[in-house]
């Protein structure tokens, strides 16, 4: 108990202060009622995201730039939590944060694959840098040098000495044979989640219990969506589905994943795991529109675990983890809003995708 209190003294206060700065569902509703992108932007400036938008000139406030700027808030949150987290939990938080580095790595590789189709008004790196998560000094990948290397093989060579070296050495054999980034991306994902789960399992006591609940819920969502998507869209075989998924999680068990891989009815399996998720069968009938909705419902399960972390004993890693995930979900909502408003998407099309407002319905 004493070590728990000492370790969480500063971070607990800090995270609760940051938590109170998250947008409320009412804030999100207000933002979503903005008639266009310009109004959304001025409404956004009045929120805690405002400080990330000041200093930019009006002509710089493009949807892409605004998205990049607001992501800085999440980067700041992670940076703050990583610095203040108790030593034994720091590897877990750092690994959780690495999610965005893995995303950056995938984006860099995709850009190298597609660079020839871009116009040359600005250099490739500038274009790529605009879509990368602002990972800052935590980054272990030489993103610019990779983009400038010009081909996937040389770019991957530059990953020597990084945590991705071993994974990439296996995946590159597949890439060389297939000239497709799919096996690389799957290998990176599997490696990321295995490491994250291992870090959660290394903890003890309340830290471990909360980390397994929160990280496990997030992993459940990903694992389940992977197996469903691979099955429906990629038509992968049973053995491939098993190899491209993970055998652990909080509620989703290996038997569930294997049942789907072996051909069991997906709706039955999902309903058995999440009895509160309604109409799974109907959602799966039209996967194009149904799967994002199903993912949304699974995200709500994660949000519930996160909210539960704030109740009771405050001296554990669950609170910082929960805050970081909620913060990430909030930014995902804002990205949906920004893209919808800048592309004049009708309200009824994007509103169901907003996690925060749907929680109060």
């Amino acid at each position, binding site marked *: 108990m004493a070590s728990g209190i000492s370790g969480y*003294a500063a971070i607990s206060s800090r995270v609760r*202060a940051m938590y109170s700065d998250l947008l409320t569902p009412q804030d999100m509703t207000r933002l979503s009622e903005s008639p266009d992108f310009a109004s959304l932007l001025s409404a956004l400036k009045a929120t805690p995201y405002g400080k990330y938008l000041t200093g930019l000139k009006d002509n710089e406030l493009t949807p892409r730039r605004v998205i990049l700027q607001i992501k800085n808030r999440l980067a700041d949150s992670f940076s*703050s939590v990583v610095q*203040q987290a108790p030593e034994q939990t720091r590897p877990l938080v750092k690994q959780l944060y690495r999610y965005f580095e893995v995303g950056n790595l995938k984006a860099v590789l995709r850009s190298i694959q597609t660079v020839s189709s871009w116009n040359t008004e600005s250099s490739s790196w500038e274009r790529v840098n605009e879509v990368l998560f602002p990972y800052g000094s935590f980054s272990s990948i030489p993103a610019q040098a990779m983009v400038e290397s010009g081909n996937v093989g040389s770019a991957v060579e530059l990953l020597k000495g990084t945590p991705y070296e071993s994974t990439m050495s*296996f995946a590159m054999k597949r890439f060389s044979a297939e000239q497709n980034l799919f096996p690389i991306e799957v290998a990176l994902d599997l490696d990321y989640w295995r490491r994250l789960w291992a870090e959660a399992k290394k903890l003890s006591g309340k830290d471990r219990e909360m980390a397994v609940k929160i990280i496990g819920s997030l992993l459940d969502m990903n694992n389940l969506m992977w197996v469903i998507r691979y099955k429906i869209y990629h038509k992968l075989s049973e053995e491939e589905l*098993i190899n491209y998924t993970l055998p652990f999680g909080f509620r989703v068990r290996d038997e569930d994943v294997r049942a789907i891989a072996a051909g069991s009815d997906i709706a039955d399996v999902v309903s058995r795991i999440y009895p509160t998720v309604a109409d799974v069968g109907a959602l799966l009938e039209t996967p194009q529109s149904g799967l994002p909705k199903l993912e949304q419902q699974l995200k709500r399960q994660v949000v519930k675990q996160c909210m539960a972390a704030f109740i009771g004993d405050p001296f554990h890693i669950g609170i910082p983890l929960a805050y970081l995930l909620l913060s990430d979900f909030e930014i995902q909502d804002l990205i949906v809003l920004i893209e919808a408003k800048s592309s004049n998407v009708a309200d009824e099309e994007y509103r169901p995708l907003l996690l925060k407002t749907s929680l109060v319905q």
Partner: protein
Amino acid sequence: MFFPKEMSEVELIIPSKDIVAVAKVLSGHGVFHQVDSTYLGLESLGPSVWQDKAATYSALERRIQTIMQTLGVAEEYPTKADAESMVELDALTPAVNRIDEEVKGISEQLSTEKKRLELFESQLRQLEPIADVKVEVGALNKSSYLHSILGVVPASNISRLKTSIGRVPHVFFTLREDSQKPVVWVLGPKSNADVLDRAAKSAYLNPLSLPEEFAGTPEQITSTLKREIDATKKKIVNLETSILALADKHKTELQKLLWDAHVSRVMADAIVRFGQLRHTYVVVGWVPTASLENLTTKLKNTSKEVLIETHTPSRNDHNSNIPVALNENKWLRPFKELLTTYGRPSYGEFDPTILLAISFPLLYGAMFGDIGQGLVMMLAGYLAHNRIALKALQSIGLLFVYCGISVTFFGVMYGSIFGFEGHYVHDYLGFDLHPVWLSPIHGENILSVLRVAIDVGIIILFLSYLLSFFNNIRVKDWSHLLFGHTGVVAFLFFVCFLSLLGGFLGSTPIAPQVALTISQLPLPFNILTPIFALGLMFNGLFRNIAEGHKPYIEGGIAMFLVQSFMDLFEGVISMLSNTLSFVRVGAFAVAHGGLSLAIFALAGEEADLGFWITIALGNIFIIGFEGLIVYIQTMRLHYYEILGKFFHGGGMRFEPLKLKPSQEEA
């Protein structure tokens, strides 16, 4: 001291011929925070040539770094500042090309040989597990009934691979256990070859790739490979010796080239963000006003025709785009760190570091008063701060010292030394110590301590409200000054609330004196309270109107009224909880005495060795455990009850142009 450093905006018009010299002055002094002023330039001039130059310098710098890494030469920068000037690309590139050519030939050979060695060693390792198999490796793939896959697989995928082939008959051998690259052999009926292949592929199993020139049994191939490895190693040693010789030969030149390329790149990067006009450039940035004169003198000495316009904005405006340089005072550093953990003040905002420096030790000491434990904390803080001992706590050593002083002071007020109080001091320590104020643990003193704690809390809350007014007045944010959650209306309602609290508690010993005094003021609180309650209830609406917006009523009048009432209810609850929150200061002072009594109960009455060991351990426990809890409580009071009332933060960090990478990183 009470505000971030005063900043001045500097706008320069520089003739094109002096641009490099000016960039050198701006980059070389670490006081100029550059603002991107490209938008002030003429778009018709097209992209700046400096953009290409900056990219070329950057590429050149990376190239030199790569050469240095290849040669194992450390990146060192000169300590003298007089070597800071931009060097033309023509002067740098030939030298870099020459060295690069020289190094490249050998390093490429070395790289090829290392790859060959790696390949041979990997093949050798792969063969080890099957070294005693007396069949030709190629023959495994020529079986009529069996499908065989021999290869390396990521260790983490083995279990999943086994699961994935569970539905077909198979034999699975792990031929070599390895945490990174284990070798496995999967055998199954030829009829299931497709399943086995798909499973192996999706588990990232890389089949062994033995070169065709190495035919024969594993033993024969191993022998050939070992000979090749020995020959390759000799080549590598020779090439590495050549690299070392090149490193010695070019070390000094490379370090100079790197510095020249780095300085040129930093300056070119700065120039890229200048606004380019036809014959001049426009530069905009911020400088601490104290350094302005020095900088302008240097600029004028550098360029006779430079036009310098400076403007020191008032702190009273909205200043979110002004970088914030906080005052550096080494004695206040721990409090600055406590503050910046919460937020960085914005430019016009009151910097509450000094307030924290007073209130933090004060509240800490009040909760933990003890002369002996305070002196121990001071000593521990001194040792940590000066890195004599407890080095891990160096960053908070000074905070320990300050809190220790306060703890000692309150120890004198409470008459407590290492937990000994009253007659215990005389009985066990042999001298008399009487509390200058009172002993919190004794009888009626408990309620007095709690009451005083609430009074102090109310005064601190008053101060926080006043600071909030001050900040809002400075930035002329009238709507928040009047109707913000710590605005005038909220404050006046808080005063009314205290009058009600004073009236309710009356002459009970817990009644805070400040609340009692307010309730006795000759003011019509029964009329004022509902007026300010309405003000608080509808402060969002009033704020909208004061800001010139149309009143925004969400979800209809009924819903709006319900929400407003809930806002008022929440306001009252938070005022009550904010006020009572300070009870903890008194409660911990009492608990401190209680914990000491518990230690004495464990120690017994006989002053033998066991007694003193128990007292010593008890004191260590109290300093470590209670000291920590009190620290958390003090921090909580500051973050929630004090800073949350008036401090907004969100200031932009002051990041001046600097040449030396170490300074930039710092």
